[in-house]
């Protein structure tokens, strides 16, 4: 038997001297006050001396007492005519929808005094199911972005709407009169009304064509489905029914297609309990260690060039088990896992799912073939009710660029797209753009593309707009303005909704709100049978935000001219056609093509981070500061490389959270300089780089902190008509320099304690307490559970007693909660430099631990080591090195644990932190004097100290609180902390108080679920349960009583935390057989 040990980073595992020193000095860094006093003279004169100090002291005392003597005169401005629905001090909620061309989610927007301050998921939507991700949570801040244009510009000079509209209409009319080509280049449009607007526009200017281009494209799936089924669509996947999931590099929990929906469905199948000791099995093959790979049961690192081969081998393995003919194949190192996966898949025919992240049509064809063998269509894959997201067509985009270069295009209108930044280098989009006489952009800022445009007509932010969405057949949702446009007359020329501009140019004067109503009354309204009157239907749809209509009727409407019989026959014909098309695809030939792919020495896999995505919100400091879930690095992109490869190249591996070697990465003749970080789990011979960075015209952030990271969109290749997000020929050269990187993780050590408890499903079935054994205290009466020994008295059980439990099996580590917490609690952004000083302010962090297999016979190994003359440290290094190549990963959200016997409370000299009767560890900022004793005494390191006045210090200009517009995002119910005070998770006490007050006002008991914390609300997988422990009927009280997986971190030190965790259960073996261990050890 072995013991699984988790560690946080390579530094901890290797226990390097630097790391040990740093761990010991965690808080002992010298204060770089000199940098911040700002007075260069003082700094030159050897710093502040005693006399200066006394001068400052004297001045500040006088100033403070003078200031205190004067009555502050505060003004109050009530409304002249108060809108009926607004009561100052009371939040209004509006249902709306987020869609940026990539992520879709039905949301609820919380507004206070007419300004949106928080976004939460809308549970009524069957598509997003109440889930939000970090980007959607952070989009509220993008509304208050001072980089947005406040009015239209022509060649970078402000113009008026009236004049420019006239000019545009004249120019467009002239172009269409001479038969010149007009193109609208847009990211995916899923709005029926916008499509209708475009057709109206085309009616006026008949030479117009829409080209859909997504920065991150899924065209490979669309074209594969066209070849297999004759339908160029992206199907709806149902992970809720998929007992076995095999993903070949599809990061479906973070980015792939519709991640929030998949995450919720996926997590539901992975929730285990005593009565339901069953969970789905997830195989993952990939090059980079992705969030999804980190959550999988069986993960195999593969090279980028092997993606297709894995698919083919999996096809063959499934075919073998189902008695079909095999394709030509090549042997792979991971064939054993593939055989395992095939076995599980075949056992779960129709309840499984095979997906691939590759944008290569051939790979997707094979995957379609596997799913057909497994009879998944119509069960876990619904191709009849396809998703409308990601309609990007790479081929037509490439064609457009060719036409532009050839001078065939007279005008291009850019909507919600930034091709100069996102297009592959080989397409040279900026040059093509210059050959077009009229470039019109609807971008909200002068970004990489719109800077070259003749006109920029800034669009409203989505929170200022009307729009409708049809994310999937039969599903509709609306977005409505939650604030009147920030930039409007008379102060600015103002922004205008793109659709209204297009309508105006098409000569239609209906405003877009009315226009949507017209479209809905003609199309969506007839599809439903619930409401008789359109007004009623409209109001209810707007109220709910998302609606579902019968899909059959949608089809009927599309063909309403034909009678039923014709339809029937057509359906049959369709099916016949499908069959024919399927027959056409020769998988053998496809497999040959796939097998002929030759790998290079280094292969590149481009990926999206959960925070930055494709970079359209790169100006959002909340997202820049959100650590990557795997590397835990903020404010940068970088090259991830296998540690083994790095050793070969003599690259810097120590202090990986602070300093990194720089390499020159060359792909397709484009060279980019990036830091390189060791990534356990990265397939050997591959590197990963995140897209979405290096935006030099994202907005003010690029001037305040410089351009963040490097743009690697130019690395994208164009092959077989699709964009290829990998490259098989990468040159990597050490640049012989190092650079600073800011990681948040390695500075908290685990000290060998069982902070994360893990078990396997098999063990859990045998014993629900498996893996969850508390440390025992040895007393004179034998071993005792430390919870039973207490120095203090129990707390009274009066009133409420709040508690929180986090299911480590459900948590996927996506970071949505972190951004939600930041938005809810006015958490400051500190910037890269302060993160490097371990001063990030996040109240909630997600710790990531890698696992490795502890050797089975430690004593034996020690003996051997002493024979060899190897030290204990080196022995562990030797034994664990091989496992480092593919570690298992766990995520653990850590916030203040609200200990009932909190160590922080006893050391505060001013009683600024103390315990409330409802079990919260309260923090009174106005009482705190900043001794930081509490942080030193906190075993979880969750207390954050305000080293600087992030809200006023000019070194932190990027902080939203330092901007007149940005300040509007602040939650007025939570105080903005200033310099010198400690802060930490308050368990959203403002929400608790508000929830209680609602119950008191309504004169009823508080019901479980009345209060939802910001983190719990944002969680796409419902991993966080919060409630009243004193209420026997609450979910959390039940769970604490009955779930054997429940445990408290560090309970052995007697602090009695309020937050508990549920053991993580893996659907795989935890130990590696001893033989393998010995072998690998010898290898090393």
């Amino acid at each position, binding site marked *: 038997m072995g013991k699984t040990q988790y560690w946080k980073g390579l530094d901890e595992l290797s226990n390097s001297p630097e790391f040990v020193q740093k761990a010991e000095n965690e808080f002992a860094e010298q204060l770089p006050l000199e940098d911040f006093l700002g007075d260069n003279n003082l700094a030159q004169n050897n710093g502040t001396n005693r006399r200066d100090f006394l001068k400052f002291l004297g001045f500040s005392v006088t100033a403070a007492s003078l200031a205190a003597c004067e009555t502050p005169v505060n*003004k109050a401005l009530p*409304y002249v005519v108060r809108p009926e629905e607004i009561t100052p001090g009371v939040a209004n909620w509006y249902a709306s929808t987020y869609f940026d061309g990539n992520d879709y989610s039905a949301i609820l927007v919380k507004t206070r005094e007419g300004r949106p301050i928080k976004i939460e998921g809308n549970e009524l939507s069957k598509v997003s199911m109440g889930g939000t991700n970090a980007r959607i949570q952070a989009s509220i801040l993008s509304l208050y972005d001072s980089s947005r244009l406040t009015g239209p510009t022509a060649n970078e000079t402000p113009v008026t709407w009236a004049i420019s509209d006239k000019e545009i209409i004249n120019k467009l009319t002239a172009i269409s009169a001479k038969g010149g080509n007009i193109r609208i280049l847009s990211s995916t449009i899923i709005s029926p009304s916008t499509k209708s607007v475009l057709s109206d526009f085309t009616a006026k200017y008949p030479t117009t064509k829409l080209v859909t281009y997504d920065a991150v494209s899924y065209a490979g799936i669309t074209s594969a489905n066209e070849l297999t089924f004759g339908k160029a669509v992206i199907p709806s996947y149902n992970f809720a029914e998929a007992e076995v999931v095999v993903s070949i590099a599809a990061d479906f929990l973070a980015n792939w297609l519709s991640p929030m929906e998949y995450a919720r469905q996926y997590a539901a199948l992975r929730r285990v309990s005593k009565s339901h000791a069953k969970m789905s099995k997830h195989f993952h093959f990939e090059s980079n260690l992705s969030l999804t790979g980190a959550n999988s049961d069986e993960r195999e690192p593969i090279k980028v060039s092997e993606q297709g081969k894995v698919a083919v081998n999996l096809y063959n393995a499934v075919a073998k088990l189902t008695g079909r003919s095999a394709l030509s194949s090549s042997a792979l190192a991971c064939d054993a896992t593939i055989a395992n996966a095939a076995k599980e898949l075949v056992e779960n025919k129709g309840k499984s799912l095979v997906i691939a992240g590759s944008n290569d049509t051939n790979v997707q064809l094979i995957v379609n073939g596997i799913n057909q063998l497994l009879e998944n269509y119509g069960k876990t894959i619904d191709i009849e009710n396809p998703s409308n997201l990601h309609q990007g067509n790479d081929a037509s985009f490439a064609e457009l660029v060719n036409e532009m270069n050839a001078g065939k295009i007279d005008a291009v209108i850019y909507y919600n797209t930034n091709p100069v930044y996102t297009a592959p280098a080989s397409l040279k989009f900026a040059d093509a753009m210059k050959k077009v006489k009229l470039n019109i952009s609807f971008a909200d800022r002068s970004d990489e593309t719109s800077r070259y445009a003749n006109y920029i007509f800034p669009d409203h932010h989505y929170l200022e707009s009307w729009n409708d969405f049809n994310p999937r057949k039969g599903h509709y949702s609306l977005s409505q303005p939650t604030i009147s446009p920030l930039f409007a007359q008379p102060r600015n020329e103002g922004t205008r909704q793109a659709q209204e501009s297009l309508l105006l140019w098409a000569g239609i004067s209906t405003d877009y709100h009315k226009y949507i109503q017209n479209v809905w009354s003609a199309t969506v309204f007839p599809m439903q049978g619930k409401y008789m009157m359109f007004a009623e239907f409209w109001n209810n749809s707007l109220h709910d935000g998302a609606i579902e209509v019968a899909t059959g009727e949608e089809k009927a409407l599309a063909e309403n001219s034909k009678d039923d019989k014709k339809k029937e026959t057509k359906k049959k014909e369709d099916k016949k056609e499908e069959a024919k098309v399927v027959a056409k695809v020769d998988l053998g030939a496809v497999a040959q093509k796939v097998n002929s792919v030759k790998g290079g020495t280094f292969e590149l896999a481009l990926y999206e981070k959960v925070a930055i995505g494709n970079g359209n919100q790169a100006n959002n400091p909340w997202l820049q500061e959100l650590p990557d879930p795997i590397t835990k690095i903020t404010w940068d992109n970088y090259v991830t490389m296998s540690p083994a490869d790095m050793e070969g190249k003599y690259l810097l591996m120590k202090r990986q959270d602070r300093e990194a070697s720089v390499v020159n990465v060359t792909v397709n003749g484009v060279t980019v300089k990036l830091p390189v970080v060791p990534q356990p789990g990265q397939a050997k011979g591959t590197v990963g780089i995140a897209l979405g960075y290096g935006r030099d015209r994202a907005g003010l952030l690029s001037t305040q902190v410089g351009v963040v990271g490097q743009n690697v969109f130019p690395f994208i290749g164009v092959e077989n008509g699709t964009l290829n997000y990998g490259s098989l020929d990468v040159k990597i050269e050490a640049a012989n320099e190092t650079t600073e990187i800011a990681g948040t993780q390695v500075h908290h050590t685990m000290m060998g304690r069982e902070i994360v408890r893990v078990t396997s499903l098999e063990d859990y079935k045998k014993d629900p307490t498996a893996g969850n054994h508390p440390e025992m205290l040895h007393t004179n009466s034998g071993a005792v559970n430390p919870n039973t020994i207490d120095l203090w008295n129990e707390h009274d*059980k009066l009133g409420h007693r709040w508690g929180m439990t986090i299911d480590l099996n459900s948590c996927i580590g996506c970071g949505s909660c972190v951004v939600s917490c930041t938005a809810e609690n006015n958490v400051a952004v500190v910037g890269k430099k302060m993160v490097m000083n371990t001063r990030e302010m996040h109240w909630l962090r997600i710790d990531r631990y890698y696992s490795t297999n502890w050797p089975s016979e430690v004593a034996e190994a020690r003996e051997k080591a002493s024979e060899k003359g190897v030290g204990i440290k080196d022995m562990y290094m030797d034994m664990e090195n091989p496992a480092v190549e593919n570690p298992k990963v766990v995520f653990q959200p850590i916030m203040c644990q609200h200990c009932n016997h909190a160590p922080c409370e006893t050391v505060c000299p001013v009683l600024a932190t*103390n315990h409330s009767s409802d079990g*919260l560890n309260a923090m009174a900022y106005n009482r705190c004097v900043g001794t930081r004793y509490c942080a030193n005494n906190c075993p979880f390191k969750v207390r954050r100290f305000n080293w600087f006045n992030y809200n006023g210090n000019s070194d932190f200009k990027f902080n939203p609180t330092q901007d007149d517009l940005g300040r509007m995002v602040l939650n007025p119910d939570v*105080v*903005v902390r200033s310099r010198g005070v400690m802060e930490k998770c308050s368990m959203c006490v403002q929400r608790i108080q508000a929830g209680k*007050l609602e119950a008191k*006002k309504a004169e009823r008991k508080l019901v479980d679920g009345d209060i939802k914390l910001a983190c719990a609300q944002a969680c796409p997988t419902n991993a966080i349960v919060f409630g009243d422990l004193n209420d026997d009927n609450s979910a959390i009280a039940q769970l604490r009583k009955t779930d054997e997986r429940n445990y408290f971190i560090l309970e052995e030190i007697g602090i009695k935390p309020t937050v508990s965790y549920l053991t993580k259960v893996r659907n795989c073996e935890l130990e590696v057989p001893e033989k393998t261990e010995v072998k690998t050890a010898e290898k090393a």
Partner: protein
Amino acid sequence: MDTRFNKSQKQKSVIFSVLLFAFLFNINFVSAQDGEKLFKQNCAVCHSVGKNKVVGPGLEGVTSRVPSEEWMAKWIKNNSAVIKSGDAYAKKILAENNGMQMTVFASLSDADIKALIAYIKNPPVVVAPVAQTGAGQEEAEKVINPLAIILGVVALLIILISILRGLTFSLKNVQNEKHGLPLERKQGAWTELKAWMGAHKRSVALIVIFALGGFLSAAWDGLMGIGVYQGYKPSQPIAFSHKIHAGDNAINCQYCHSGVERSKTAGIPSVNVCMNCHKGISKGPITGTKEIAKIYAAAGWDPDKGAYTKPQQPIIWTKVHNLPDFVFFSHQQHVKVGKQQCATCHGDLTTMTIAQQFTPMTMGWCINCHRTTEVPGMKDNPYYESLHKKLSEKYKGQPITVDKMGGIECAKCHY
């Protein structure tokens, strides 16, 4: 030296220190028993010292109405006990006030009640408020600084001492001359003082201690007053009178401050609320049309045409009550759930021409109220049902005040 002389000096110094002692302590003593303050804190919400009835009867000449002052003391302390005892006069009062019972003031001491009755008997003469013209002026209450009084007395004593000293000196020399003794040389006051201080170390120490004590207590009072704006009465853009609206015209507070039961802020009414009445009322009793014209200007109302024709302009009021940013205070919690009266914190606005901060609104003041106030409506509100039961078991017989259910914990107001 003459011993008699010494003795007389000793007597003088003792008299002086006793005077100073009595004086210093008297200030504190009186202020603790200030009947007016007690009245304002406890009674003014429902009673006036004049004839007019507010909630309860006006108290002018009440001592001659009631059976005895002892009876009145009992009544103030616990009126329900007096009623229960079957007292005839108590029943009569109850009937006169439609059976509405007075609050029980168990926390008042006998001394407090004495001071209260003394105050009610001889209330200060209320000068009718002078009508304010134009924007209301800031009118600070004229309070004589206790430090000034002390300094005045000390100065007076010094003058007295120096006169007496001169007098004794002249008299002594007259006597010496008479007896043919050598004349005393006139010594400098400072030398003599030093000599005197050397001879009376104990008295000097006593004086210094008292002086220091006086200074520190004054300084402490001064420091504690920083940031406390009780009585703050800022000028407002419109000379709005709460007395006319809430007092004379008896408009309910919530008509204008409608958020009080729904929101954390009671809210300053928007101009359209003013216009509900002022469409018809264009002339006020004191300022005529002048101030109401400002509302019209803000609302864009043209009184001649009777229509909203002009551009609107919000009124920029000056906030009277300013809580620091780090305090969360909710009106709905106190008014809707806690069933508190507006006047408890804001005073009797029906008598205020210019709104002012009536209470200190310091944290001590909040806590004090939370420590002494029983939670009204707790028994009837199902939300509190189990909590009330548990608390009643824990604090058998004691009143369940806000602090007993966690109402003075940091995180209830600071987050």
